[in-house]
């Protein structure tokens, strides 16, 4: 048998205070779809960055088709035949598709030829794309196509995909998988990074599992259960959230014909949204990112003000009230963007706890801050949500994404709101912590809070929602009971097609 396409031997990389990779080894064969599996912070991205020449390993070696391989920059990796599709797209919003593709190529042909080749490749692989469109206007799925085509135009031998499906609708995932299988059939190897186990089981030939920077196992996904892989990943048995639904409560949050213009130029305006949430109920709202999620959260939290009657809490019109007033009547919100929106990055956890807890936790008196109370509140959050930090006086930006997420969700949950709106509550959080956050949301509902959970993680929504709706271009689909919804139905709802239209 010939040498593997890429062989990684004992790669180690340490950053100050943390060993990101500790002797990681695995082989990728020609034409193999190889999964790299692990929690957030397990070191998957670091491995990939070393292969792509963005990061230099401290020790260890790589061989490429039997020869030593040590790319010093991405250009070297690209010319060897490595292509990479980034997790957070490495695209330029203000440039058009062809320009974006040209930037990722060593020797791009003149623009006119390039546009023609983009068309040709995109049609060959079933990824339709117009080279002249501005990337800022594309959907997440289309943006990913730009990245994939950028790689394909260079005939890569190894295509690295970092969490490619996290932003896609189920239908888009199917299109992507079809493309990947076609590539595999043509002999291209794929290194597929994900923590979505069912995807890996259906797509990948082989999986290497990382935990805390170390190889903890290899498996053949098709022959291993998702639960086994998850437990290898987490190194522990997983707790599935449990709940007892109580759907006879009074309506706490009522939204009627809510239309609002987005505050940002690239945002999506809300169009005629109506729904209501009862005490003890969880409404899950899905949809591809950028379809009005941020705006809906802003309208419910009070950042975006509307006419009074469009948002009613316990029967009182509140659409004209700002966030502070709404907190006073028990409506809290946790936005998606942790740094800069949910938390002030350079302020301490105590100060951040104070910022939203001031009203309900009585943390100020006659204009003076009750620092003792704020510190206690921050300590409570840290303890109750297992936030790993040396102390509450640390700046918010010093926390890892997952820990900060636990903090900002915990901060709202502990205030025991009557209405809580969260956007992407478990984004970037490892499986164990995500389960804990979901459980806390369920517990809150059991105590009678009305929850609106906006998320792009459909599994999460199906797990905790009582009813489900989807946002599409600022419109809300019909809202249906979550139990019994099929993935096809959800996909259609996310695509903006109603059940009747689909039947026709």
């Amino acid at each position, binding site marked *: 048998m010939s040498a593997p396409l890429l062989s990684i031997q004992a790669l180690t990389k340490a950053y100050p205070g943390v060993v990101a990779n500790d002797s990681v080894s695995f082989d990728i064969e020609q034409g193999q779809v190889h999964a790299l599996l692990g929690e957030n912070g397990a070191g998957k991205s670091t491995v990939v960055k070393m292969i792509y020449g963005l990061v230099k390993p401290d020790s260890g070696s790589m061989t490429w088709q039997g020869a030593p391989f040590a790319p010093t920059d991405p250009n070297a990796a*690209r010319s060897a035949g490595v292509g990479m599709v980034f997790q957070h797209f490495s695209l330029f919003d203000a440039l058009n598709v062809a320009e974006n593709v040209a930037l990722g190529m060593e020797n791009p042909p003149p623009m006119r030829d390039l546009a023609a080749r983009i068309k040709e490749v995109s049609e060959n692989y079933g990824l339709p794309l117009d080279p002249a469109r501005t990337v800022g206007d594309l959907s997440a799925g289309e943006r990913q196509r730009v990245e994939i085509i950028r790689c394909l135009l260079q005939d890569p031998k190894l295509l690295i995909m970092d969490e490619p499906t996290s932003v896609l609708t189920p239908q888009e995932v199917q299109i992507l998988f079809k493309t990947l299988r076609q590539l595999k059939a043509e002999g291209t190897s794929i290194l597929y990074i994900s923590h979505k186990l069912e995807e890996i089981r259906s797509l990948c030939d082989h999986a290497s599992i990382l935990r805390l920077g170390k190889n903890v196992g290899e498996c053949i996904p098709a022959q291993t259960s998702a639960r086994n892989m998850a437990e290898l990943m987490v190194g522990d048995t997983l707790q599935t959230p449990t709940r007892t639904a109580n759907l006879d409560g009074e309506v706490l949050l009522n939204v009627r014909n809510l239309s609002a213009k987005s505050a940002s*130029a690239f945002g999506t305006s809300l169009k005629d949204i109506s729904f209501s949430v009862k005490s003890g109920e969880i409404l899950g709202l899905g949809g591809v990112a950028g379809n009005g999620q941020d705006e809906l959260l802003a309208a419910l939290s009070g950042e975006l003000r509307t006419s009074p009657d469009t948002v009613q809490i316990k029967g009182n019109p509140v659409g004209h009230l700002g966030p502070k007033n709404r907190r006073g009547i028990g409506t809290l919100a946790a936005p998606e963007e942790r740094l800069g929106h949910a938390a002030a990055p350079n302020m301490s956890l105590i100060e951040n706890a104070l910022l939203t807890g001031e009203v309900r936790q009585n943390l100020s008196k006659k204009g003076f801050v009750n620092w003792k109370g704020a510190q206690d509140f921050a300590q409570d959050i840290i303890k109750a949500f297992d936030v790993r930090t040396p102390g509450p006086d640390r700046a918010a930006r010093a926390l890892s994404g997952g820990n900060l997420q636990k903090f900002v969700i915990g901060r709202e949950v502990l205030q025991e709101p009557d209405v809580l709106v969260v956007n992407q509550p478990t984004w970037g959080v490892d499986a164990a912590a995500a389960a804990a956050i979901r459980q806390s949301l369920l517990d809150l509902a059991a105590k009678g809070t009305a929850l609106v959970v906006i998320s792009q993680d459909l599994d999460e929504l199906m797990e905790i929602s009582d009813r489900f709706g989807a946002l599409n271009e600022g419109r809300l689909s019909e809202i249906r009971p979550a139990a019994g919804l099929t993935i096809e139905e959800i996909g259609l709802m996310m695509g903006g097609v109603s059940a009747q239209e689909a039947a026709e």
Partner: protein
Amino acid sequence: MDLSAINPVLLVASLMVAATPLLLAAIGELVVEKAGVLNLGVEGMMIIGAICGFAIAVETTSPALGILAAMLGGAVLSLLFAFLTQVALANQVASGLALTLFGLGLSALLGQSYVGIKPPAMAKLNIPVLSDLPIVGPILFSHDPVLYIGLAIIAATWAVLKFTRAGLILRAVGENHEAAHALGYNVVRVRILAILFGGACAGLGGAYISLIRVPQWTEGMTAGVGWIALALVVFASWKPWRVLLGAYLFGGLTVLQLNLQAAGIPIPVEYLAMSPYLITILVLVIMSADKSGAPASLGRIFHASQ
């Protein structure tokens, strides 16, 4: 009041001269900002260019050498800014302001012995027949070479940004420096080169004032043109041709209001003096309503560790 004393041909010819320093400084800053760097030191680099150009032109009696020295002087000063912001990762706003204050002070020191001296004059273009044409001749074919260089820089900047790979990379760096870095482009190198270009252009603009437009040396003689250039880049929506339009509009209004003052129009001088600022900004604000926004990474510090 005698409006007939205003000669339209002369007016157009002199507005082109009045606009050139602004044009040069603004196009340099446009390139810097397209690369994602906000350099508020334009005024400082201009005044350093003005004194360097003036001093060298006087010492060597060669205006051309003076012009080169001005570009070099502006670029050297901008290198200080590049070091502070790209290597030491200092705040761009504070560094730029410091650069302006430093430039104003240093130029006053350098220029002490040059006050009241007349610099060697730069020859004007004189093409037989063409320069003698009525109307067209004085407007198009009788200026100094630097004015034409300014126009050429505008056209070249536009073409490079729009059509070349170097321009594409520059825009990419200004748009999303993390993505550009991930694709293997050297963000810091691109930015330093852009800053140097901006410094050279600002220096050239400054020397145009001290060697051609005025021509003499007085302390603080750039008189805020650098600040107007900064505003012009923003209101021109980072588009080279709009910079040209804005600069000519501003230059035209400046010259016109001077002419109106001379003609004794019954409007207080103060209103006339402020009119170029007001009208230029007004026109450009209306034009920039199309929301073609700023480079997305403008003013953000890039550190390659992520």
